[in-house]
């Protein structure tokens, strides 16, 4: 099965992969309306200092909802995302079976079922899962949200991050 693999030596920390991901998963599919009409946010600096994304959002400083994430350290950069592991640690840890593998081999989350217990965040050795607090199935729990991770862009032939990367630092292939 094809998945997205980073080529770290080519990454220049431009964050276009994150922006493309957010736009691809938005409703309006355009950067300007995604930001102004849907309220989607692209800049990680805005929510810095907030440990809880729900509190960041309440302070009108929401974190970006990208499914890939650029990591930077001392001029070394890399964008990482879910690898749709053959044996998925998240699926083995999920408290109620909301995480599953579909017929194509992708590891996906049933967003209506996820209770936001974050066992998957604990379990994913690649740090590929984030908290989407724009959806909650357990409103009685503070900061509740659902699992958020790469879904390999089901409506595209090539994932948006791979397509947009200006240095071809992301590869979509079988390994």
């Amino acid at each position: 099965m094809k998945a997205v693999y980073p080529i770290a030596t080519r990454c220049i920390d431009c964050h276009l992969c994150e922006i493309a991901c957010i736009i691809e998963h938005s409703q309006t599919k355009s950067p300007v309306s995604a930001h102004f009409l849907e309220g989607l946010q692209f800049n990680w600096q805005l929510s810095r200092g907030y440990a809880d994304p729900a509190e960041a959002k309440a302070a009108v400083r929401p974190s970006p909802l990208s499914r890939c994430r650029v990591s930077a350290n001392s001029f070394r950069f890399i964008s990482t995302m879910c690898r749709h592991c053959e044996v998925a640690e998240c699926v083995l840890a999920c408290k109620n079976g909301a995480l599953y593998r579909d017929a194509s081999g992708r590891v996906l989350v049933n967003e209506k079922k996820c209770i936001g217990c974050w066992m998957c965040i604990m379990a994913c050795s690649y740090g590929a899962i984030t908290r989407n607090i724009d959806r909650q199935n357990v409103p009685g729990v503070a900061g509740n949200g659902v699992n958020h991770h790469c879904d390999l862009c089901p409506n595209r032939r090539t994932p948006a991050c791979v397509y947009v990367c200006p240095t071809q630092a992301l590869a979509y292939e079988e390994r």
Partner: protein
Amino acid sequence: MEYVIVGNSFAGMFAVEAIRSVDRDGRIILIGDETERLYSRALIHEYLGGLIDESLIYLRDDAFYDRMQVTLLAGRRAEKLLPDDHALVVDGETIGYDKLLLAVGGAPFVPPGIDGLEKFKDSVFTFTRLSDARLLSELVKGREKIVVLGAGLIGMQAADAFVHLGKDVTVVELADHVLPLALDELAAQLVQEEMELANVTFHTSDSVARLNGKAGKLKSLTLQSGKEIPADLFVIAIGVRPNIGWLKDTGLIVDRGIVVDEHMRTSLDDIYAAGDCAQGLELISGSRIVLATIPIASEQGMIAGLNMAGQAAEYQGGIPLNALQFGRLQIISYGYVKERKGQEVISVFNESQSAYKKIVLEDNRIAGALFVRAIDRAGLFRYLIEEKVDVSPFKNVLLSDDFGPAALPTTIRDEMFTTRRSRIHRPALQTVSPA
């Protein structure tokens, strides 16, 4: 091939899926002593507290057993194991097996020496099953003062459920702080304060000595310290022990749980064990211990199933891991977070955010990691612990807000992100979950 699995929860479920990924023809019999179909034992507290809809607690859909061609014997209890005959006695009926998986989990431990447990038995409960949750949700309507014995994960979650039901809750714990196995003193203090905001009362370094009341009605409890506290419902949640009493005198080697090797095999031929009843390899200590958590049970069940079906899959070992939340405090912990002599600690505490990160190091390898509220990317630490990575080259950035894959040495970063990793030799089929 006759596969028999005793235990209708996580380990048994993943074993079924693993067997079917390799063998669509063998017969599978799944025996469970509960009548409900596959549900998540971890969610019975949320269910009791009215926080989640019942539909969210079921692990698979109604058609799961049919789809997997499993003969389900629900509400039936396995009473005796006859290893020489390759058979099990289930409610008087003898069932033969070619391969047997014991995924029988744990049973709640009731401490001896509490005076009055029998006299007030209508007010004393353990809380590990969905049937307990249903019973308690009816019973609790007429009760106000709930006392929970045990501030481990089950006790604290039970207390939380009763808080959501608007009850007056007190928790009594033997250790000197709550969640003594999962948290350190600082994190435990944060959790206790959070629960105290919801009016929960705590008595730590204490225990319950006696139940008091009149005419079978519970009125109060006397603690070991001498204090008397009002109570009309008493929930015992001091721990769960592997359900292995019924396996005595079978020749099965047991310690705290059923001892298993890297193929989840027990000491008896064609018998495997997985989950909360099994004692498998723990990577940090290098010894075999019972790790009663969902990811371990699921993985062990999957590996057992593959081996039963003839695949040589190996269990690499596990570590203690927990993800929990009380009030606003989301917490993830790995390994052993209370430092011992000779271990190094690095930590950062942002008091205004109640955000706490702590790493315990031994010889530059992570032996424990604890995250309170700052849980983003915590899973990277699972990799570092399980792969026994020497973190000295990047120790100074481990706790930074920006810690991520870019901070890892190139060889490790590439090992993690450029290969198609599989934790066992052959992948198991994981089911399509209908929405």
